[in-house]
């Protein structure tokens, strides 16, 4: 697995977990806190931005077309992992998300 692939996996997972936590149903499993409408909007926009960021390393390494195919695939597979974690250990879903953001930033700094 290349660095670009790791980066994309980390960012896709983090983005999708952000989008899921913007939904009250999934947030409830993780914390008692409620988000205001603005916070939800900020979370959604940030997550969407991260989602697009996840495409960039794929684009760089594989080119626009192939990169897109691989990006969509990574998105699907990380979402499967996220859904399983949200169901069997929701707290872990969030911990892994932070870990993924952290490792993505680390990988970026190492470049």
């Amino acid at each position, binding site marked *: 697995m290349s660095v670009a692939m790791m980066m994309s996996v980390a960012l896709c997972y983090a983005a999708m977990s952000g989008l899921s936590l913007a939904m009250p*149903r999934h947030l409830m499993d993780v914390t008692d806190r409620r988000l205001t409408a603005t916070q939800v909007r900020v979370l959604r926009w940030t997550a969407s931005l991260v989602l697009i960021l996840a495409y960039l390393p794929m684009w760089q390494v594989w080119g626009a*077309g*192939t990169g897109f195919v*691989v990006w969509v*695939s990574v998105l*699907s597979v990380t979402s499967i992992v996220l*859904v399983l974690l949200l169901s069997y250990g929701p707290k872990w879903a969030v911990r892994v998300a932070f870990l993924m953001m952290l490792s993505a930033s680390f990988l970026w700094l190492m470049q």
Partner: protein
Amino acid sequence: MSELNQPAKEQESFRQAMGWLHTWGGLVASWALFTIFLTGTIGVFDEDITHWMKPEVTAVSDFDPAAMTEQQRVAAIKKAQAYLQAHASDSHFWRIGLPTETDPGIRVSWRDQQNAAQDTLLSLKTGEPMPVVENRETEGGHHFVHMHYEFHAGMAGIWFVGFFTMIMLVALISGIIIHKRIFKDFFTFRQNKGQRSWLDGHNASAVLTLPFQLMIAYTGLVIFLSIYMPAGVLANYSNPQQFFAELLDEPMHRPETGVHADVVDLSVLFQRAEVMMGKPGRFMSVEHPGDSSAVTKVFGWFDEKDYYGQLLRDEIGNVQFDATNGDVMNLNPPGEYDKGTPMAVQRVMRIMHFANFGGYSVRWLYFIMGMAGALMMATGAILFLVKRRQKSLNEFGAQTARVYRVIEVLNIAAISGLAVACIGYFWLNRLIPFDIADRAAWEIKGFFYLWLLMLVHSACRPATKAWLEQWSLFTLLALLLPVMNLITTGHWLVSYWQTGDWVSVGFELTVLVFGLMSLGLVLFLRRKLTATERYSQPAKPSEAIS
């Protein structure tokens, strides 16, 4: 009021119609589609599986096919031609393949008088067939690939698969229409909630991998475009061969003349082709050897790694000769693909389907999404019955219970039965003796017999017990596979690890992971079975009274 309600009502009845289509279309196709998806997904790793299934090959040779010299290649072609001329002079088609990583000999294949495919592996040193103990005859991982697009049934199988793939596209689209909460339930999987969980599992496996499922079904159809949609060509060309010749910008296929003419020295043509392509050759074919219409084609060397990232792959290059006098008929130089946009589009779709454009990371992504697809079929088929378990919907009047039972038996045989057959295929690879005739075919026959046995078993046993027993068998076969391998060949997970055979390590670890998942399923089913037995026992006397 009523006028205002009209569109909503129409929409609702449209949804209901789509629901009917999804339920019944999906159910009828689910068994075939599960088979296509499971075997196709396993087939993503066909070369790696073949590697594990030929343990002697790694033991016998540490030979690198890419490092062959020109003299070695030419000598190999000479040996192959000598063998074919001696053993298949009356054949209509020859093919000679130089050694590869999984085939450390010269692979010669031909069509015999009955047009049946024959092949054998020749030793590089002697030019004679390699002893069977050095080369276990097996289809290896290609068995799964063939299974998923033709069920080992040739053209009939291709049509069979195409028909159900079409239904899959219908089921996907109708499924999207009837799923009212795609985004609300996007991340939702409520476990251990009976019918709710089956539906969530069905929805999540489909929605999360939807782009993949649409892509893989559509590209699967496009690969066989000229077979599935022949009308356009047939309406405009009296001879379809001419269409392909024009499309691919190649000379037309030459019909047999019946006039005898010797095939010239193929190794000379091979060498000339290498010069013309500017790269080594990898395999060559001869059409109608011995006839005056004989044509030979030499294909260039290629390494998958050179094409990573390319959805529109460069040409590997090939040269076509008149095999009776050595005249060049066509040169297709290696390099940029130049057969026009329609062919390029089809080529891109093929490459997307084959999952070989990005090494192991892409293969694993495809493997997981393919398994999600298989899970979507399986959960859909099971959901059909779960929905009707509490209360029969009486679709078939007095016969309803009987029809449900048939569906149940088919579900079990298609899902757990196929899983057992797949893992059993690996056992057969180690247990069938070397010297048996048609050994490779026996492995595949064994696969089908085992599957049939599971069908009979599921018909004879109560449903929950049948599920439990078949998954228990799968668990045993999967978890004991490395042990069986150790006993029969002396290799296993640990020894592979020590010798650095990572492909085999990966194979056995993957099998073990599936064994463990199956073990979890078995424990879950056992808990469920004892729970229902506990509840249903006191209920029996009252049932008798009522």
